[in-house]
């Protein structure tokens, strides 16, 4: 079955099993390996991408769900890595091992698109499904606030 999907602004026509997880299509078919495989059960958030602007877990999203729609991955968050979140991430040295970071960034970007001035509670609730085994949560929260221009009192 042919799936037509726009990925990071580029029209793609994929001849794949419609039940193939979007994550597989991104990584193995399109070579977009910035999105990570973590748990495969929507429990860790490492595979978070945007589907028409909404965060979905790509590991549990059949590619058929993306047919005719727009997918944005970490590679498409900004043309040059200059999204305010990406700049804040670098300035604060947020990542440790970095495996979860693309998922963290995609969730945080969706949060800021909807709530440009998030509270600590907003950040904690929206990113609650993105696990970081290195425990960089305090730096993640600080970077989200920095990108949003919200003073970090800590």
């Amino acid at each position, binding site marked *: 079955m042919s799936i037509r999907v726009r990925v990071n602004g580029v029209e793609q026509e994929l001849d794949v099993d419609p039940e193939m997880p979007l994550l597989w299509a991104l990584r193995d078919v399109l070579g977009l390996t910035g999105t990570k495989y973590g748990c495969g059960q*929507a429990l860790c958030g490492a595979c978070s991408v945007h589907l028409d602007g909404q965060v*979905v877990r790509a590991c*549990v999203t059949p590619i058929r769900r993306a047919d005719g729609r727009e997918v944005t991955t970490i590679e498409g968050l900004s043309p040059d890595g200059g999204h305010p979140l990406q700049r804040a991430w670098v300035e604060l040295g947020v990542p440790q091992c970095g495996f979860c970071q693309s998922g963290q960034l995609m969730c945080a970007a969706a*949060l800021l698109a909807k709530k440009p001035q998030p509270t600590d509670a907003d950040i904690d609730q929206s990113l609650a499904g993105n696990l970081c085994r290195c425990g960089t949560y305090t730096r993640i929260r600080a970077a989200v606030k920095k990108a949003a221009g919200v003073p970090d009192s800590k």
Partner: protein
Amino acid sequence: MASVVLLAGAGGCRRQPDSDATRWESLPPVDARDLRPLDVFQRIEDPAQRSRALFLETSRVYLHPRCSNCHPDGDSPYQDSGETLHNPPVTRGPEDKGVVGMECAGCHQEKNLELARVPGAPNWHVAPRSMSWVGKSPRELCEQLKDSKRNGGKTLEQLVEHNAHDELVAWGWAPGSGRQPAPGTQAQFGALVAAWVATGAQCPSEEARP
């Protein structure tokens, strides 16, 4: 001394045998996976008592984890047997469909996803706080379901229709991935709810349990 007073008070409040419970015991036993068929309730001659027995039977569905997990007593749904909170830790958000980045639809889709055991049905969401019923007795639940302020703004007729045909309600009997379904079938449940309404939508006593 205080304990003596308390004991004396308790003795003074001893209840009479519960007539609802007596009627209930007259019904044939049923497997936990099934619902009693509608016709067995006809042996209860008094319509009000029959109505109360019918509600107790339907409470086995309402309070089953497949249904009650998403009518939680807080802002996060439960999962499995109802003793653990949803993982990952979601919150209901302003429209009971999660918060940005953690919307229900970020994982839950139009149907069950067997590949990753993610349950799904149309309009997946958690019930509003006003429709919370985890931890409630059958009587409390019964009174709530008759109150349009706490039942999603439904008339009793709309409640029957919702229970009998709603697609998200239907998921309770087809949860997939080895999850225990709600007892009986949706058609049986809808018929029992309709019979409860037709007999006056009476509520059981506080102590009555199915």
